[in-house]
Structures are given as C-alpha cells and as structure tokens.
C-alpha cells in the first residue's frame, strides 16, 4: 500500500442548487491515510461539498474519483459499491431514532454481510467499545448526550470497516473538551485502521490538531481559495482573508465587530 497514493480526487467540481452556483471548479486530491480538512466560513458550501462526495447531491459539473474510479459517471449500483468503502458521521449524528445503538450499528452489517447473530453481536460490542460506549448497546439515541451520540454515530460509520471516513462538523454542539477527545479519537482510528479521513469543520483548534492537508472555500469568490497544510498556510500564505480566518480575525487588524458576520 503506497502512502502517497491518491485515494480521492475531486475534479473541476461545480456545485449548484438549480441555477444558483455555490462553488465552482474545486480541484483537490486526498492522499491515502491522510486527514483532509475542508474549511471555510459558515455558508461557504463545506457541507454541500461533503454531500457531493457521498452521493447525496449530484454535481452540476465535474466528478469525484475514488481510487481512480469515477463516482458520478456511473450507475446507482456502481455508486453503491463505492459507498460501501465510506463511512459518514453526520452533523446531527443522524442515528436512527427508532433503533437502539446496537441495532444502529448492526443494520449496515445485516444488509451487507451474512454473519450469524452471535458474530454480529460481538462486532457491535467491539465497535461500540472502540468509541467508549461499552454497555450502551440497548440505549436509544434520545437517551444519550450529544457527545455520546456523536461517538455512537462514529461507531455506526465504522461498522463496515470503511476505507474512508467522512465527518460533517464533528465538533458542532460539543464542549471544547469533548470535541478534543473526539479529535483524538479520529486520529487514533486513522492510525489504527489506516483509513483516509475527510473532515468538514471551521473549528480552528480541530483544524490545527488533525489536518494533514486542507482546502479553504470562500463564499465570495465562489471557489477554493487555498490548499495545503493549515499550519503551513498560516506561516506562508499571503492571503489576508485566509490568514484572518486562521487567526480568528486577529491578523487583519479589524476589530471583531466590524467583520461581516
């Protein structure tokens, strides 16, 4: 397995809702085993980009390639096969509320494997213990705190041993400590599973802690404004807007109240 191999390639991706273009001409490669962060201001289309990568929204133009294979220029069946390599943690965790945690984690396994109920049970327990939720098998999502729901969502995303994990705003709604622990968990899982990780976030602390590579989306120019490791970008970039983002506006010298919300 070559560490420098390109796992995901985004090619000239243009995203639009009807005739309203959100972002145009996004190009990026994600290396196997790296943590790739999509950053940008609120409303810049970060989550929309994620929706295009996991098949929830068709691009107006361009394509996404997984292992060199086109994701959008193929039929539903082909897309489904490629999605089996992916696990997604949604912003709201999106656990199926009518099922217990164990059933949530087990459902993808039931759909795609023919394992016996005992095997399933063991796997489910393993996945839940990996995210620190041993013993919560029979709880319903509504009985858990936000942080626990995020972790349960992560256990479900990992159910099928995905090669790629997607995270949509993992720290949204979590306190700083819980969110840091989640970041640590992401890195830990990446290292042990060898998965490629794509994270959509605007949390600076998270970005600097986990990102190997990143792109910065800008709502005004409607395209990506920068690419690279965030720490490097902060050191070397001359782009005032990017630097303002990475320093919470301290770089630009403008008082906080004057920046556009």
């Amino acid at each position, binding site marked *: 397995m070559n560490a420098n191999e390109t796992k995901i390639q985004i090619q000239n991706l243009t995203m639009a809702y009807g005739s309203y273009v959100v972002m145009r001409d996004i190009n990026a490669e994600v290396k196997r085993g790296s943590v790739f962060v999509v950053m940008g201001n609120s409303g810049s289309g970060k989550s929309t980009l994620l929706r295009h990568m996991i098949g929830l929204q068709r691009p107006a133009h361009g394509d996404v390639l997984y292992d060199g294979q086109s994701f959008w220029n193929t039929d539903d069946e082909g897309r489904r096969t490629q999605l089996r390599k992916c696990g997604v943690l949604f912003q709201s965790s999106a656990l*199926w509320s009518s099922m217990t945690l164990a059933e949530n984690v087990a*459902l993808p396994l039931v759909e795609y494997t023919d394992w016996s109920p005992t095997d399933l049970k063991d796997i489910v327990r393993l996945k839940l213990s990996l995210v620190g939720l041993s013993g919560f098998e029979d709880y319903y999502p509504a009985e858990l705190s936000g942080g626990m729901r995020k972790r349960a969502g992560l256990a479900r995303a990992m159910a099928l041993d995905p090669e790629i994990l997607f995270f949509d705003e993992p720290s949204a709604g979590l306190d700083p400590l819980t969110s840091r622990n989640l970041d640590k968990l992401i890195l830990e899982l990446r290292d042990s599973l060898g998965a490629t990780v794509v994270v959509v976030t605007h949390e600076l602390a998270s970005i600097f802690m986990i990102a190997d590579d990143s792109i910065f989306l800008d709502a005004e120019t409607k395209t990506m404004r920068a690419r690279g490791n965030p720490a490097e970008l902060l050191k070397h970039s001359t782009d005032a807007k990017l630097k303002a983002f990475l320093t919470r506006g301290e770089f630009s010298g403008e008082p906080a109240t004057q920046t556009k919300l």
Partner: protein
Amino acid sequence: MTATPSSASLVVDQESPGVLLVRLSGNGREQGIRASEMLVQAALSAPGAKSLSFESANLSGWDSRFVAFIRSCSELCRSRQIEFRDGGLPEGVRRLLRLAEAVPEKKDAHHAAVKSRLLQTMGEHALKGWAGALEMFTFLGENLAALGKLFRGHAQFRWSDALLVMQECGPQALGIVAMINFLVGLILAFVGAVQLMKFGASIYVADLVAIATVREMGCIMTGIILCGRTGAAFAAQLGTMTVNEEINALQTFGISPIEFLVLPRMVALLLVMPFLCAFADLISIAGGFFVSVSMLDITPTVYLTRTIDAIHLTSFLLGIGKGCFFGFLVAYAGCFRGMQSGSSAAAVGEATTRAVVTGITAIIASDGIFAVLCNALGI
C-alpha cells in the same frame, strides 16, 4: 419652539438660522420624550436646516426605542445633507449608533416584494402543479418497483418493522374505529327510520344500514380515521427523519429509504385494512341494530335475518377491496408527504397537514370513481 410638560422632555432650539439643538432631559425611557419626536422631524424637514446636535446632560436614562429614534434622525439628516453631530449624546448611544452603521445595509438582502401579473402567477402555479404531479408519479413508480422487489424476495425490508406498524395501526386503532362506526350505524338507522316510518316500512332500516355500511360507510370511515391517525403519523415520522438526516444516513449506507421505510408501512396498511373494514362493518351494523331494536319495535331476529339477506358477498368484498385500496392511499399520502418534507419543524407540520389533506381527498375522490365504475359494471 415648544416643550412638552412632562418629567421627560425634548426641546428643539434654533441657535442661529438652520443650526438645530435638541435638548433632552428627564428619563428617555418614558413616553413623554417619544411624543415629541415629531418636533425634531418637523424641524429637520423645514427648509434651511444645516446641522443637528444634541444636549443630553440632564438625560437620566434611555432604551432601544430612544436609540432607534436617534438613528432615524441621523438617517433623515444624511438623506437631507444636514450635518449630524452626535457629540452631545450619551456615550453608550453613540457607540451603539456606530455599531449599527459599521456594516452598511445590504441592499439586496431585503426580500423584494415581487409583484407578478395574473397570467404569470397562473403559469407558475401550473408549472408547480405539473412538477408536483410528476413527483407523485415518480414516488408511485418507486413504490411499485419496491413492491415488485418484495415479491421477488430481495427488497431491503424487515418484517419486524411491518409487524410493528401493523400493531400500531391495527389493534391500537380498534377503539376509535369501533366508536366512530357504531355512531355512523346509529345515525344511518335513525335517519333512515324517520323517512321509512312514513311509509310504514321501518323494517327496511336493516337493509339500509347493512348495504350502506358494507358497500360504503365502513371502508370510507375506516380509511378517514386511519388517514388522520396513521397517515399523519407516517408523515411526521418520515419528516422528522428527514430533518434529523436519518434518511441521508440510510442512503449513504446504500439502503433505499423507500424499501426500508415506506414499504413496511405500505404493506402493514394493506394487510390490516381488510380486517379493520370487516370489524367496522360489524360494529356499524350493531349500531343500526341498537336503534332498531330499542326504538322501532323490530325484533332482533327479524333485524338480523333481514341484514343477512341484504348483504351479498360481492358487496362485502367490494367494501373490503375498497378498504385495501384506501389503506394504500393513506400509506402513500403519508409517506410521500413525509419524504417530501423540508428540513425544519414548520416543514414537518406542513407535511403532516398535507398528508391528511391528500389522503382524505384521494379517498373521497377514488370512492366516487368506484361508485361510477360499479354502476357501469352492474356490481
């Protein structure tokens, strides 16, 4: 010029021609100061005004309403090219004014009230209606395809889900179905009796109740009850799942929401409806029986014999068949509106309302079509 006699007051002075000074005193939160706002506006509107300044040393307090007033003065000044001097205002007011003006108003942020012509509106509605109809048929097609897959045995479908829905919309609905249908039977018998007694034909009440119930009322009432009870619940469940991204989560796992969520609900209603309809028929006839025996001096035996004679198997099966179809309509409307739901609390509420409206409309309309068809076919 003038002053309002109040603890809070506002006086507009003209120091030299065109140079206005507004003296504020008292409590700026009180009504008195607002009552005299017109004075400032009048003074500013007078020709020759050059500058506006304030004196607020005696002002003891102020609130947002006061700041809004000052801001409207400043805007008026700007539009009339009058110099606005905020030096005399309290420190807090000045800072709020500066903050409010830091980001200029976004001209295109206001939603413009688009005035459209009648023809244009009609055209837009027609297009929207057409798109809605297409969506409806697409959903129908997807559902039929999923049903086909179920028969061939490879749909992503769990019988446990279907059984759970069956329990919710079957046994748990018996109470309300019984109550409504008993009352309908009662009403049918009563209304019928009043007319038939005039001809001394009260005995035919039994026929009337039996035929009306078995052919029409039993399945329609059950369909409408289920629409309000179960169809609304389906729409709310699926709508909430949309809001919560649960539908998206299913899709990313390659699990079809139609097969996994809609199909169990549809199958459950299709299976439960015949039994509910038969039960409704029975209860409704019991209602008619109650009225006839207690008020019309018809003996129980006679009533029952006439009832049995009046019900033909075809009528009974027609009622049950219609019931099944109404069950399908209820599940279809509920699930369709639920899956269509937008992602906000209001959207889920709207989806629920639309599910019930669509369901009831579809039931009544299709019953009309059934009536015409039965007439033509002589059933």
